[in-house]
């Protein structure tokens, strides 16, 4: 297991994350049809296709550039509520990712910056049934694992698990942001699609990091 990931790994991780999301587009739209407008999968797939296209188009110099490309691509597509939130996550992640490689602590730091970037754009907080309910647990788990001295991919495994758990648990919450909020109590019972997207992205990052290219 590597202690740190480099440019190549990050590129692979981003592509794998995009593929995970694109594969689940139908399920993401289905979840959005309960309280929203039934398009989260379409929108996320469009965003992730544009990430793949951006990575193909211009070879990035380093990790920061790569993440910047991904963030701009998401920000630049017609992404509804999702685009600016995921876009700002990756852009802030890029800001937080200095250096040639990322070890567990550096990745945790970058992800904390990413989470802060999202929070600058929304008043939604933990428990409001949004993507925050997967993202914040993932980032916390990543930091805890890094502090415990785990290497980067093992730390990421903890993060991915926490994101998946957060997405699952979001089913129990009542929506207070996003279109589903108008449903009130009736929003309880289905996972939040945005939270599932976060879980898929972390799962993809992990798979991409583990694969051999």
């Amino acid at each position, binding site marked *: 297991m590597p202690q740190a990931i480099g440019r190549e790994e990050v590129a692979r991780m981003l592509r794998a994350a995009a593929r995970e999301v694109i594969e689940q587009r*139908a399920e993401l*739209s*289905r979840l959005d*049809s309960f*309280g*929203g*407008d*039934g*398009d989260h*999968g*379409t*929108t996320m797939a*469009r965003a992730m296709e544009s990430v793949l296209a951006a990575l193909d188009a211009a070879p990035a110099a380093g990790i920061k550039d790569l993440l910047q490309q991904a963030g701009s691509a998401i*920000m*630049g*597509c*017609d*992404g*509804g*509520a*999702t*685009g*600016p*939130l995921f*876009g*700002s996550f990756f852009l802030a992640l890029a800001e937080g990712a200095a250096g040639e490689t990322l070890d567990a602590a550096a990745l945790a730091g970058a992800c904390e910056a990413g989470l802060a970037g999202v929070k600058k*754009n*929304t008043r939604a907080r933990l428990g409001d049934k949004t993507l925050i309910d997967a993202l914040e647990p993932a980032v916390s788990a990543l930091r805890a694992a890094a502090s415990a001295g785990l290497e980067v991919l093992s730390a990421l495994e903890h993060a991915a698990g926490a994101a998946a758990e957060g997405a699952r648990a979001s089913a129990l919450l009542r929506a207070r*942001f*996003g*279109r*589903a*909020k*108008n*449903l009130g109590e*009736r929003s309880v019972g289905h996972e939040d699609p945005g939270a599932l997207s976060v879980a898929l992205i972390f799962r993809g990052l992990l798979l991409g990091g583990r694969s051999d290219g």
Partner: protein
Amino acid sequence: MKKFLNDPANLVSELLEGFALAHADKVRLTGSRLVARARVKPADRVALVTLGGSGHEPALSGYVGEGMLDVSVPGEIFAAPGPPRVLEALRLANRPAGVLLVVLNHEGDVLSSNVALELARKEGLKVRSVLTREDISAGTRADPSDRRGLVGCLLVYKMAGAAAEQGRSLEECLAVAEGVERDMATLAVALSPATHPATGQPISALAEDEMVIGMGQHGEAGGGSRRVLSADETADVMVEALVQDLDLTSGEEALALVNGVGATTLMEQYIVLRRVRRNLEERGIKLARSLAGSFLTVQEMGGFQLCLCRMNRERLALWDAPCHTPALSIR
């Protein structure tokens, strides 16, 4: 899903191509799929810009033209455009008189606009914005951020657009827009769901004997479902709620807009409008202006939105000022 479509990936670019063709005398496509007036308004007049997802035709680009909007930024189906295109539209519209950005209160539109506005101000563009959030389905005392932007945006485009056309300042146009926004209220009712044209899946479900008052802009649920009512009963329930919210009282004047959201016929809309007038008149409220039509749709959803706006002399004059856009003409 039974719709006349080709590859869903090209939906928006194909529909914009046809839109520009059908209204070549009024609009043109420019830049990254922005819709602009065919003839640019003089630079000493404030410009109006708006943004929003596609799939609601004729909205929002249907109101680009003389007397209303200058530029619109159509997003993907039901998805707000990203900040870069909004910024591009603000740059395109930029002028000494300034730009007023009209944003409907939906998370995506608000997020994109906020990012774009921040960047625009850093670039030194003279931009102000107004948020329309006149949906009362969350209740009168609801957090204003819970009030969605529905068809009322049309009234803001029209009246602020007329003020701009007359040469009023950016602050004055903003004041008109904010005044109209404060004095309007909308409620939506749905009878049957829409299908998302890209996924082919229905959005929300409604039983044969069920209707929902408080439906959102995209077929996303809201309000409570109830037994289907007659046209008159439905109109009465909605007028009552709107009049309460606006605190409209005897002796006042109002504009009523019945907006069919797709499969609801003009026939039904006219029948509803007729009852709206009768109801208002019984309350001593004068229906000064009225419209019925499919102005902002949700694909083939069955239902309508009813919007009431408090009118006064200034607003009547702004309303009556001429406009010539693909979806609304007044002269």
